[in-house]
């Protein structure tokens, strides 16, 4: 009886954690969409920056729809449709570490180049935009790599 209660509490706690993750994901997705829309309207450079802004809207829209569907499903069934296990969490953390290292290295290189007055004519958004896109790409690539079993967590 007591074990059952404890198990029930654990399941409820785990579900709360997953709902929190879905809500956080929806908030970040909303931010990405806002960022994309704002830059489309106020982007003075156009060209390659438009590709980045559309990719932000696409990724944000995908995650927002996915999160909304999961939250609606949660209202009906009480489950968000996925379970956070230790392996999944560890892979995500390892992937974000890779993304962080690449992002910081890229920004360092840009900082050195701008200190040598090589990049003096290039504005801040044109440097940081590709850096962020590169960081996100590396994060997703590393995450998929770890999920497929490369360098698997024992």
């Amino acid at each position, binding site marked *: 009886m007591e074990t059952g209660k404890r198990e029930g509490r654990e399941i409820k706690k785990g579900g709360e954690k997953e709902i929190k993750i879905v809500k956080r994901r929806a908030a*970040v997705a909303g*931010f*990405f969409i*806002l*960022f994309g829309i*704002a*830059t489309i309207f*106020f*982007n*003075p450079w156009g060209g390659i920056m438009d590709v980045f802004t559309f990719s*932000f809207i696409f990724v944000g829209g995908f995650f927002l729809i996915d999160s909304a569907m999961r939250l609606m499903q949660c209202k009906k069934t009480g489950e968000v449709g996925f379970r956070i296990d230790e392996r999944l969490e*560890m892979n*995500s*953390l*390892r992937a*974000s*570490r*890779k*993304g*962080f*290292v690449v*992002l*910081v*290295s890229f*920004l*360092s290189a*840009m*900082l*050195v180049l*701008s*200190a*040598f007055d090589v990049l003096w004519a290039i*504005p*801040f*958004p044109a*440097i*940081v*935009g590709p*850096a*962020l896109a590169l*960081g*996100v790409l590396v*994060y997703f690539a590393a995450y998929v790599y770890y999920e497929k079993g490369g360098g698997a967590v024992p």
Partner: protein
Amino acid sequence: MKNTLWYLGFLSALSLLYFVEGKAAFLGFLGFIPYFFLYKLNDERLEENLGRAARNAFMFSMLFGAGAIVCIYLTDSVWLMAPAFPVLFGGNLLVCLLSLLYYDRKGG
């Protein structure tokens, strides 16, 4: 197995450019030296804490970078570009190291 964040320690060598260029900004790269101490951290809990710290710093750079770009677009102000870059760069390192300290003290 080496920790990935250990490689960031090598960026501290860029501070030597101070002696070439004489710009004090290059001394900021000395902030990467603490990353050398992460070389032998293979304990599972510490590895998890490092991952969380890197995730926080990664999220900071994503949100701050995107926010700064939007602000620059909206206000059309050139003067914002100069402080935004160092804040993004320094903030990355600070968030990572402070998060690591926090998780280490909190106990995972």
